[in-house]
């Protein structure tokens, strides 16, 4: 039973990622006045996949070969595993565990750790540089993003993701927690590698970042993990801040639309913003970016957590 559910989830993710790659290409091409290849550009992702499969696999010479081969799979798994706890509709979730938010946070950290190991296993200065960059940057925003999640948990009073969604029936958390919503959104941009909050590819040194040594199937896993990650981050934003599968207003017309569609619409909105940032902005330099995370976001998130906690306490007990 659970196996078939996992297969359904994986194939849905696969289909969604392929669609996302296609839509992303189309949109970026539209913004950049590029012409699309024949058959509406539909053959392009297939051709890319074909090309990657038949690429020569290049392995590092050192002792890290096994790790080098296994790590992309682990990286991919660490991101796909997050999807187990994401509820797309009332009861439509692989595992509605009572510490879903905690599981997500743990998995986010795990994938960051795996990036460091990928950089090490690639046995190359450039990959190591890229990995250290990426990780330093993600960690700078990770803490503030986790504090943003803490704010949501304080307001909803539960770590179960479906409870968090149901708690937003009156008001989505993006309104009362708007600054935290912004913080978390920027964290999503960092994780999905979208400008302006991404690692700058200075042309040659860090082009391709930590995945620079990967070719063929290893690269397919990492590239796919990136797109699944984009889907994941938009889903997490939807669950935590945009009211999950709930319609925006309790209107008859809105209630007619299946709630899965609402979830999809909210996700697509986030994804669209991710894609458009890719074309619209220059990239912050690494040191500015990290400073921004540590010096501005973290203190602000801390203050907001205390404020949110204080407000919840006062409104619950009625005492000041």
């Amino acid at each position, binding site marked *: 039973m659970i196996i078939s559910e996992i297969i359904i989830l994986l194939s849905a993710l696969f289909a969604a990622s392929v669609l996302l790659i296609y839509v992303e290409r189309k949109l970026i091409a539209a*913004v*950049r*006045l*590029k012409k699309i290849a024949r058959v509406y550009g539909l053959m392009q992702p297939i051709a890319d996949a074909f090309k990657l499969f038949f690429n020569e696999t290049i392995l590092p010479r050192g002792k890290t070969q096994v790790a080098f081969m296994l790590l992309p799979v682990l990286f991919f798994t660490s991101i796909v595993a997050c999807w187990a706890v994401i509820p797309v509709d009332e009861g439509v979730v692989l595992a509605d565990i009572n510490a879903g938010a905690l599981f997500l946070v743990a998995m986010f950290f795990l994938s960051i750790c795996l990036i460091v190991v990928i950089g090490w296993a690639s046995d190359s*200065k*450039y990959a190591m*540089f890229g990995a250290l960059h990426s990780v330093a940057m993600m960690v700078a925003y990770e803490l503030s993003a986790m504090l943003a999640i803490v704010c949501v948990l304080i307001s909803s009073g539960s770590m179960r993701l479906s409870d968090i969604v149901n708690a937003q029936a009156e008001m989505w958390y993006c309104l009362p927690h708007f600054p935290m919503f912004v913080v978390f959104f920027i964290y999503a941009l960092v994780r999905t590698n979208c*400008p*302006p909050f*991404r690692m*700058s*590819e*200075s*042309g*040659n*040194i*860090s082009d391709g970042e930590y995945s620079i040594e990967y070719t063929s199937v290893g690269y397919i896993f990492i590239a796919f993990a990136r797109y699944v990650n984009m889907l994941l981050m938009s889903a997490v934003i939807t669950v935590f801040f945009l009211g999950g599968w709930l319609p925006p207003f309790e209107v008859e017309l809105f209630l007619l639309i299946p709630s899965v569609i609402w979830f999809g619409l909210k996700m697509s909105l986030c994804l669209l913003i991710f894609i458009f940032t890719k*074309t*619209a*902005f*220059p*990239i*912050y*330099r*690494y*040191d*500015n970016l990290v400073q921004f995370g540590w010096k501005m976001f973290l203190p602000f998130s801390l203050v907001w957590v205390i404020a949110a906690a204080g407000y919840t306490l006062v409104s619950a007990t009625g005492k000041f």
Partner: protein
Amino acid sequence: MVRAVLKNSTLNTMQQTAGGGFFRLVLEVDGENILKATPHIGFSHFGIEKLIENKSYINAVSLLNQEYALVLAIEKLLKIKPSKRAAYIRVLLAELSRIMSHLQTVVSIAEGAGNSTPSYYGAAVQEKIMEFLELAGGSRLHANCLRVGGVYNDLSYGLMEDIVKWLKKDFLCFLDNIDEKLTEDRIFKQRTVGIGTVSSENAIEWGFSGANLRASGSLWDLRKAQPYDVYDELDFEIPIGKYGDCYSRYLVRMAEMRQSVNIILQIIEKIPEDFMIILDDTVATDNEKTVLSHSSKNIDEDYNVPAGQCYESTEAPSGEFGAYLVSDGSNRAYRCKIRTPSFAHLQAVPHVLKGNKIEDINTIISSLGIEAGEVDR
């Protein structure tokens, strides 16, 4: 006990310049900071000087703005001047190429700062300019127009009107767009302001010229300082920067593009209506008073250049482009030395990069307008 020795890492990188050439850049880095940068050149060396020395004068050509200096030098040795209309056409094409080159530099600065969208829009504009050059000279990248003593041919009918229409309508609109989206962009400013600063004194010491020198605050433009062809009859301004950083260099180039538009619009008004593109009497043979330089006879026989030597320089988009010719009276140059601006700019790269972050390499090198092909010759 094993003691770990910490040392700075050395990175070997291939630096691609905006035009497509390469040079190797060996970096010694301490984390993010560049301690030492050593450029290695020679990957796109094709020996243009030797090629010129082994070809007759008429076959020795290079890109339009670069060819210009050579043509001027040969003309000086021959003691001839082009007709007025030909000179105007030359300046028109040179300014169009200047726009193309500056545009390339500007969008690659943006690309270095992480936004590659402008380069796609820039490519569309360049494509249009190339169309104009193709109509004028028959080939796209290298407008094969300049000849000793004039130009290849008169501009085709209606071309000038088209250029004016396009410049006024589309191109200025494009520049405004770039100004709006890029010049005022906070992140772009953060990436370029105060990065790769070259002081005025250093710029002069390192032999800077062109837009890079002007961005450092020196007022020096060969079009004003020693006007060639008809630049002295045209009214234009020389934009200069103040701080000599990447942003200044970007702004100077943006302003120069507007000045180039200004120049072209003036040319269209002032250009005389005579169609004679004629070599001077000293060159034309008796029965051929009106030798067009593309006539087959001219190419077959070629012409001899009086013995002597001269240096002529033009304000190419990236800086002072000079050609030094020694003639021994035959139809080939005895010695040809080409002075390229990028070579002088490249020697400043180790000094400018030192102390900057590795992310800024692309911004700095593209803002200096360095072309590997020009460096290596």
